[in-house]
């Protein structure tokens, strides 16, 4: 759980990541894809912040932008008190050991021509001065930590299974003792049977090394399992950010409510009675977002104000932030008892 007294390890303020669109004969700049549009969040030391949302909502872009894998359009990201947006490329490289990323596709994110040992050792060569035997010892140590057989050190990524490859990716991310790791859908490409193993490994490593995670996923139950706090994204913006239990029991934003109502219930009896909030229409293009609230085109409770004014991202109850006009003042129900059903289990 977050402790508001301590300073956050990661402080994101007004982060925007826009990708320019060039079109026409002279490739003029005709617009922007607003993949991430003004998000602010804090991540505290040793916590796991879950970041959920549907495909294309900007989760992965947000994760990459936070650790400066992109040059951000606007805003600031402070990690451990250093504003990454202000750094030149060399000082940014020096910051890399503190922040690492575990990628979604464990096959594509490993260089096919490098052996496991050289993949894990490469950041050590770059950022630490170790003798080759010390380096090998560290590689073995990391392979032990993620549960890979030491005998596989000289093999190439294609010789491993998906779960093993993700372990290589995790070992590589851990090599420099990072404080903060962005896990970008680390289990999405894995079999269900392997997902639990990898998530448990991530939890064990968090305890062992005191890691801080930003856990990006579209799997709501997995996020519920691993996260301390959860942020919900829709079309480049965070619509709700709350401690895990609050978010799953009392979702305030209509989008969060709809999202949670889509999670199937294992008990067939209660599943039969549950009402799902079915959202109409498609997600608008991030290149052409609606005026006012981004969610107004699909929101079941939208009114005129939603189509004119972008709702402020406010703290409703301590620790629970929501961006909706109707939350807090006049509590407007969606008219369905989803909230109650979810609170039951």
């Amino acid at each position, binding site marked *: 759980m977050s402790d508001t007294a301590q300073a956050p390890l990661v402080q994101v303020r007004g982060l925007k990541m826009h990708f320019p669109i060039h079109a026409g004969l002279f*490739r003029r700049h005709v617009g922007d894809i607003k993949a991430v549009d003004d998000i602010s969040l804090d991540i505290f030391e040793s916590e796991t912040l879950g970041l959920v949302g549907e495909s294309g909502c900007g989760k992965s872009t947000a994760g*990459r932008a936070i*650790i400066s*894998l992109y040059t951000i359009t606007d805003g600031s990201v402070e990690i451990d008190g250093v504003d990454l947006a202000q750094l030149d*490329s060399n000082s940014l*490289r*020096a*910051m*890399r*050991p503190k922040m*690492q*990323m575990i*990628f979604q*596709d464990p096959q*594509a*994110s*490993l*260089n*096919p*021509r490098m052996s496991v040992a050289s993949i894990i050792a*490469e*950041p050590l060569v*770059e*950022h630490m001065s170790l003798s080759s035997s010390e380096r090998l010892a560290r590689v073995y140590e990391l392979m032990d930590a993620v549960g890979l057989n030491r005998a596989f050190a000289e093999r*190439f990524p*294609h010789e491993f299974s998906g779960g093993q490859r993700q372990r290589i*990716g995790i070992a*590589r991310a851990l090599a*420099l003792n990072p404080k903060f790791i962005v896990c970008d859908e680390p289990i999405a490409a894995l079999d269900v049977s392997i997902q639990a193993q990898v998530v448990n490994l991530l939890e064990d490593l968090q305890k062992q090394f005191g890691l801080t995670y930003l856990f990006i996923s579209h799997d709501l139950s997995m996020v519920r399992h691993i996260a301390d706090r959860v942020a919900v994204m829709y079309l480049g913006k965070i619509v709700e950010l709350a401690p895990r239990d609050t978010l799953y029991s009392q979702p305030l934003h209509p989008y969060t409510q709809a999202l949670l109502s889509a999670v199937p219930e294992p008990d067939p009896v209660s599943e039969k009675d549950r009402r799902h909030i079915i959202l109409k229409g498609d997600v608008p293009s991030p290149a052409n977002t609606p005026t006012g609230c981004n969610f107004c085109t699909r929101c079941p409770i939208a009114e005129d104000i939603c189509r004119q004014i972008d709702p402020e991202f406010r703290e409703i109850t301590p620790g629970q932030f929501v961006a909706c006009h109707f939350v807090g003042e006049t509590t407007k129900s969606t008219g369905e008892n989803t909230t109650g059903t979810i609170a039951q289990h």
Partner: protein
Amino acid sequence: MLNYTIRRLLLAIPTLIAISLIIFLLLDLAPSDPTANLPLTIPPEVREKIRQSLGIGDPIYIRYLLWCKQFFVNEPLNILEQVFGWDFGGDRLRVLSWQTRSPVVDLIVQRMPQTLWVVGMSYIVGVLIAVPIGIYSAYKQYSWFDQAGTFVSMVGFSVPTFFTGVLMIVIFSVWLGWFPSIYDTTHVVTDWQSFVFQVRQMAMPVFVLALFNAAQISRFMRASMLDNLNLDYVRTARAKGMKERTVLLVHVLRNSLIPVVTVIALGVPQVFGGAIITEQVFKVNGLGQLLIIAIQGGDLPTVQTLTFIFAVLIILFNLIADVLYGILDPRIRYD
């Protein structure tokens, strides 16, 4: 890998036998006459005697088997004798050129150095130009450098060498007088002065061919780099905090070179084949020129032998490309 290579080499034997037969039959079907270039005053019966003396009167299978024996047995033995000083004894009949009555292999040995120097050098220069251009164009995609590079490679690829060659001669030999327009084969490099002359006379043909080669290879290099630049492992390398140089030259380049190296290897036989047109334009009497003269003169043994040697080289470099692929890409296993 070794098993694979040996298996491929064994498979090459029937392939080459088939190729030699096809070449032989095709050329035999051609209505060329080795005596056609002789003066018209020679009476027909004398012409017929000349033809008989060249062996044209024999049935085709006799001529084919004879050529096979000469090429596969007699010539290798001859080479062994010359290289190691052994003596196998006996009087072996060699493949003789109908035009010059000298052994074809000797002609090839005479012509080889010019071709290798000019065409080979142009290939090396072309690769050396193409690889950095391809890398930088891809890295700065759509920049002015990339646009210019793409344009130049399009021009280099689409403008034939007989045009660029003549254009170069007009500009650099006629107007500016920097380089000689004719390649002097008899020139021997003995000191600095003669070396400079050799460089000057090579400059234009090498440049013309290098432009052509570089155009192709730089496009391959650029495309291959672009394929790799957007892959996830490149992002991983950046996330590791590697220098941009390392990301580009170690991670991306090594992976992009895999297809490019095979393309380069497959292009090597063309070097030996000579650049027929460019050699004509600059009067470099290399293998390409030998081939064209032999075709004009109806000199079948020379054409057959040269074509067959090209076929051998193509098969050999195909194999080399495949083996290189296996060495460079750990995902490929042949065994």
